[in-house]
């Protein structure tokens, strides 16, 4: 599920929350620092967040190199490399070619390196397969070739079996198949299976390897040439980009080629090398000094000391049985915490205790795979590492209790078997206390819930009062298609007095992942679904359903326990997610943002999505259509007069309640499909026929039917609107139309107008008009209601595939 800008809104929400908690966007104090200590917020802390793994940035030779270069060439040399470069550039390239024993081109950053490389190396008829977790900078550069129509795919992280399957298939159509991956992944610190990839290079002549080894640079291999090249020479069908900005400690990037012609060509025509500025003198000066160290035996000692620190860290993590998520190949460690709230809690406590560690949080990792990410450098002493990990082990269970997260939850979130015994579990058990002042009541059918209790909470909010849900339960079971069968779960959280503090109902069913994507994206996905009906679909647990609109979550914000109640609801949703093996959980249709609820959901691994606006007509005190006319703005009156009232007499209007013949139902269904097929803004599966039958048999529903009269008269109606009556709210939920004369007579507008008149006739107080057609709905007096949803994705692979489609669409637009 995605929507334009939603991703950025979500990231903004998460990062802003981290800033508010004072663990992101921090600054060091304006005082000199050296080694492992930095000053943050007036306090000296041990830094466990640096990617300068060898600590070379404090080496006097690098500092001198930078100073000398500035004195020699100034603070910058502002000319494109296509014209002229400072002489030291050549010297550095020669040194780097010695380090890598391959052809090298320097670039100001690795990101620019990818942007220079990928469009030049990848031809239009090539195929690109990206590892799901390949660095964002590679994915960004791939968008450029995607816009040219290059075939792009994602493959699940490090799944060499799936990669080989794809190579075998794609080699039939493509001369070159590029696999793009990282050497060492920047978040979890795990490694690419390089041996297997080299096997593929030998086995498949069409296979090309493009790798970003930024986090492996300097700390592995002869002369510090990196993790990927630590056991192999560069292959002739291989290209590596690596960073001089991490353990190399000088800034910049270097592109390493197995093919001399590639180096020449990218150096000649690679976009940023033609038109962007070069790496600057200070960086070049430092890099030359760093390169000389890499070419000396000194690098071996440095690497050894770092490796000792890594081994020591692993011993301590094992000692305290902290949930280390991957076998570290670099100096990056990731201790899983599952939910962001636990991550925030621990990072904050660590900072207070004098240790700076990173929060690994969405979007760099999936929402429920938040973790404490920390790095170890050569400069750390064993004592410093020991004190930090001991503190982490001390804090961990305390924070777990505070945030009500168990070790089991953590291992489950990362799909790792929990170790049999754990020191932490013992401590946790001794600390956890249950308050037990709230209870969750869970029902599988609305019939087990007292209608008065339910309707007190939800009547007038949508088509999900007791009666509405009864219809849905009957319609969405026993159908032949999987998407037409839903599971229902009703949850009520009550306090000791029996007051409902929070309540909702969940439906679990198959959704299209592109439901909220722009129509252009859905068009592409639908094209694939012609041969693979369930492509990019997945099981979703939704608070609400695909057919209901409105605020499906009841919270008594007056209660001092509403947050605890929500917490229980969320935990229940997680357990249902496990039970039903659903990928996503969605809480939908929030009208506006409640700041505290927003934070609570973010803490629990949910991100906010912007949904299409909803619409409501309120203040229906008017008595006649004339009075209604005068409630509208001047523009809307003009519109109503010219586009609606002018054609009003062309229509016969009928209100149909109760059973209708099957033939009528079939026709209505055809009209519904006309509308469904036309609009992809909210891309869902078509509703089942059975729903229409259930609706026609239910006294809360009625159908407004429009017939054209006179010479345009047809035997069959041109429009039907299925409307639900819930308390004093009127809810037109489904529309079906014959578009033949829509342009001529404004059938849709007429339908909206008739809905308004009918609602008034029934004495309704408001009309819930739902999503889409904002302009038309505003013109008949509707208020626009910004609407949001919250989503938790267990596995983001399908969303990433969808996002990659979105990006190419955006790029080609």
């Amino acid at each position, binding site marked *: 599920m995605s929507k334009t800008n939603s991703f950025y809104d979500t990231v903004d929400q998460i990062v802003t929350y981290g800033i508010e908690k004072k663990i992101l966007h921090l600054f060091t104090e304006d005082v000199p620092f050296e080694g492992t200590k930095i000053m943050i917020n007036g306090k000296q802390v041990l830094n466990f967040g640096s990617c300068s793994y060898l600590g070379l940035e404090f080496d006097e030779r690098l500092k001198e190199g930078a100073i000398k270069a500035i004195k020699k060439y100034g603070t910058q040399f502002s000319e494109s490399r296509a014209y002229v470069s400072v002489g030291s550039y050549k010297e550095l390239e020669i040194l780097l070619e010695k380090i890598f024993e391959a052809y090298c081109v320097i670039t100001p950053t690795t990101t620019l390196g990818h942007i220079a490389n990928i469009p030049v190396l990848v031809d239009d008829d090539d195929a690109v397969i990206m590892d799901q977790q390949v660095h964002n900078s590679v994915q960004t550069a791939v968008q450029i070739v995607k816009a040219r129509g290059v075939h792009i795919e994602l493959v699940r992280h490090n799944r060499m079996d799936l990669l080989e399957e794809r190579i075998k298939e794609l080699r039939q159509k493509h001369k070159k198949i590029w696999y793009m991956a990282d050497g060492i992944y920047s978040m979890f610190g795990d490694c690419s299976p390089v041996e297997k990839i080299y096997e593929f290079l030998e086995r498949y002549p069409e296979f090309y390897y493009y790798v970003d080894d930024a986090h492996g640079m300097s700390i592995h291999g002869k002369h510090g040439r990196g993790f990927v090249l630590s056991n192999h020479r560069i292959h002739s069908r291989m290209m590596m980009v690596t960073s001089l900005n991490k353990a190399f400690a000088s800034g910049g990037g270097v592109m390493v080629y197995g093919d001399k012609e590639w180096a020449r060509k990218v150096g000649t025509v690679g976009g940023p090398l033609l038109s962007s500025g070069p790496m600057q003198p200070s960086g070049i000066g430092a890099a030359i000094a760093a390169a000389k160290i890499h070419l000396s035996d000194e690098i071996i*000692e440095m690497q*050894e*000391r770092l490796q*000792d620190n890594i*081994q*020591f860290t692993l011993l301590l993590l094992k*000692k305290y049985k902290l949930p280390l998520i991957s076998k570290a190949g670099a100096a990056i460690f990731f201790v899983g915490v599952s939910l962001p709230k636990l991550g925030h809690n621990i990072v904050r406590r660590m900072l207070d205790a004098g240790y700076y560690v990173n929060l690994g949080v969405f979007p760099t990792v999936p929402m429920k795979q938040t973790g404490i990410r920390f790095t170890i450098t050569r400069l750390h002493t*064993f004592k410093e590492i020991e004190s930090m990990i001991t503190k982490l082990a001390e804090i961990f269970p305390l924070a777990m209790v505070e945030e009500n997260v168990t070790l089991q939850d953590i291992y489950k979130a990362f799909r790792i078997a929990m170790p049999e015994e754990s020191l932490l579990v013992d401590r946790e058990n001794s600390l956890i206390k249950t308050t037990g002042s709230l209870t969750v009541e869970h029902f599988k059918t609305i019939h087990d819930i007292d209608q008065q209790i339910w309707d007190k909470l939800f009547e007038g909010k949508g088509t999900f009062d007791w009666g509405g849900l009864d219809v849905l339960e009957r319609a969405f079971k026993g159908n032949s298609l999987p998407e037409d069968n839903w599971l229902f779960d009703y949850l009520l959280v009550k306090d000791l007095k029996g007051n409902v503090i929070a309540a909702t109902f969940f439906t679990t069913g198959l959704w299209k992942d592109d439901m909220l994507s722009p129509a252009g994206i859905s068009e592409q996905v639908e094209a694939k679904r012609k041969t693979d009906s369930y492509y990019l679909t997945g099981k979703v647990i939704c608070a609400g359903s695909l057919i209901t609109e409105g605020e499906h979550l009841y919270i008594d914000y007056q209660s001092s326990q509403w947050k605890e109640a929500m917490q229980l609801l969320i935990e229940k949703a997680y357990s249902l997610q496990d039970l039903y093996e659903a990928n996503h959980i969605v809480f939908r249709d929030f009208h506006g943002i409640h700041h505290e609820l927003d934070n609570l959901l973010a803490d629990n691994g949910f991100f906010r999505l912007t949904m299409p606006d909803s619409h409501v007509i309120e203040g229906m005190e008017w008595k006649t259509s004339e009075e209604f006319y005068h409630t509208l703005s001047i523009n809307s009156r003009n519109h109503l007069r010219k586009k609606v009232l002018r054609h009003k007499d062309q229509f016969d209007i009928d209100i149909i309640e109760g059973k209708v013949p099957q033939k009528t139902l079939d026709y209505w269904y055809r009209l519904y499909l006309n509308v469904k097929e036309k609009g992809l803004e909210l891309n869902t599966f078509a509703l089942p026929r059975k729903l229409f039958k259930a609706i026609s048999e239910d006294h809360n529903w009625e159908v407004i039917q429009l017939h054209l009269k006179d010479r345009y008269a047809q035997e069959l109606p041109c429009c039907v609107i299925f409307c639900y009556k819930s308390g004093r709210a009127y809810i037109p939920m489904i529309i079906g139309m014959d578009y033949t004369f829509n342009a001529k007579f404004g059938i849709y507008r007429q339908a909206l107008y008739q809905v308004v008149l009918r609602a008034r006739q029934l004495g309704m107080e408001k009309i819930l008009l739902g999503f889409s057609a904002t302009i038309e709905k505003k013109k008949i007096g509707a208020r626009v209601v910004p609407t949001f949803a919250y989503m938790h994705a267990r596995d983001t692979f399908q969303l990433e595939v969808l996002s990659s489609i979105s990006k190419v669409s955006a790029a080609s637009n």
Partner: protein
Amino acid sequence: MINITRVEYCRFSLKGRLRLLDLFGELVFEKITPNREMGVFKLNDFYVAVIKDLEMNSVIEASPLWTVDQLQFYFSQ
């Protein structure tokens, strides 16, 4: 104290081993000959023999002892 096995200890470089012994090792035996200084440390539940070359003034070995015979060998020197 640190939980470490002999195999894990062997993953450390010579300098790393000395850093470990410095922090967690307990010297149980020491002997100086004209050329060498020998020490046996207890680390967790095993012993480590450290040999320093006095002429070069550097430690040349810090290896774990795998058998009782090896341990006795050092004590009998």
